[in-house]
C-alpha cells in the first residue's frame, strides 16, 4: 500500500534557526496536506497543496509540492518556541479517497 515517509524523525534547533522537514510518498498524490500536532494535542490542519510544483507561504512557513507530486517539504524560517510540535504531511488520493499520514518530524526548540 501507499507509504509516506518523513525525514528527519527528530530535529532540535536553537531558537531563531531555520527548520526543514521532507516528505516522500511511494505513489503519486492528488494532494498533500500538512498538519501540526502540539505535545498532548491533536493534529491541526495547516495547508493543502494540489498543483505540481506549487509553493505556498504562511508567515514564516513555506510549503512546496514536488513536480512529480510525490514529495513535499515544509520550511520554517527563524523558529520560535511556539513552533514546537510534530509536523505531519499527509498524502491524499482521490482514487481511493484515503489520507495517509507521514511518519512525522518532531521539532524541539532550544531557547
Amino acid at each position: 500500500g501507499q507509504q509516506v515517509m518523513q525525514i528527519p524523525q527528530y530535529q532540535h534547533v536553537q531558537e531563531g534557526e531555520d527548520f526543514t522537514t521532507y516528505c516522500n510518498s511511494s505513489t503519486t498524490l492528488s494532494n498533500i496536506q500538512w498538519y501540526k500536532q502540539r505535545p498532548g494535542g491533536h493534529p491541526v490542519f495547516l495547508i493543502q497543496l494540489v498543483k505540481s510544483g506549487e509553493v505556498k507561504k504562511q508567515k514564516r512557513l513555506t510549503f512546496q509540492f514536488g513536480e512529480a507530486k510525490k514529495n513535499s517539504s515544509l520550511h520554517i524560517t527563524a523558529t520560535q518556541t511556539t513552533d514546537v510540535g510534530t509536523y505531519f504531511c499527509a498524502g491524499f488520493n482521490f482514487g481511493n479517497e484515503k489520507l495517509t499520514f507521514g511518519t512525522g518530524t518532531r521539532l524541539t526548540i532550544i531557547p
Partner: protein
Amino acid sequence: SAVISQKPSRDICQRGTSLTIQCQVDSQVTMMFWYRQQPGQSLTLIATANQGSEATYESGFVIDKFPISRPNLTFSTLTVSNMSPEDSSIYLCSAGLPSRGYTFGSGTRLTVV
C-alpha cells in the same frame, strides 16, 4: 471548518471490557474517520464511516473488534471491544473534505490494565 467534540478524553479500563468513544460534529459531514495513534507515533487509519452504510475497515482492523456506528451526518461512535493492554493508545476521530483539509477531535487516551 468543522468543530468536533470527542469524549471521553481519557479512560482507564479493565482488560476484557469495552469502551465506546463518541464524536459529535457541529455540521453535517459525509465521511468520518477513526484513527489510532500510539504515543510518539504517526496516525493509523482504523476505518471510514459513512452514514447509512457499514464502515470500511483498513487492513489489520476488523468490525468485531472495532464496531462503528454512524446514525446520522453529525455523529459517530467507535467501540473498542474485549480490550487488552495492546489496545492502549490514543483514538482520534476526524471529518472534513479532501479539498479543505480535515479537523480532528481532541482524542481519547485509553489505558487498558
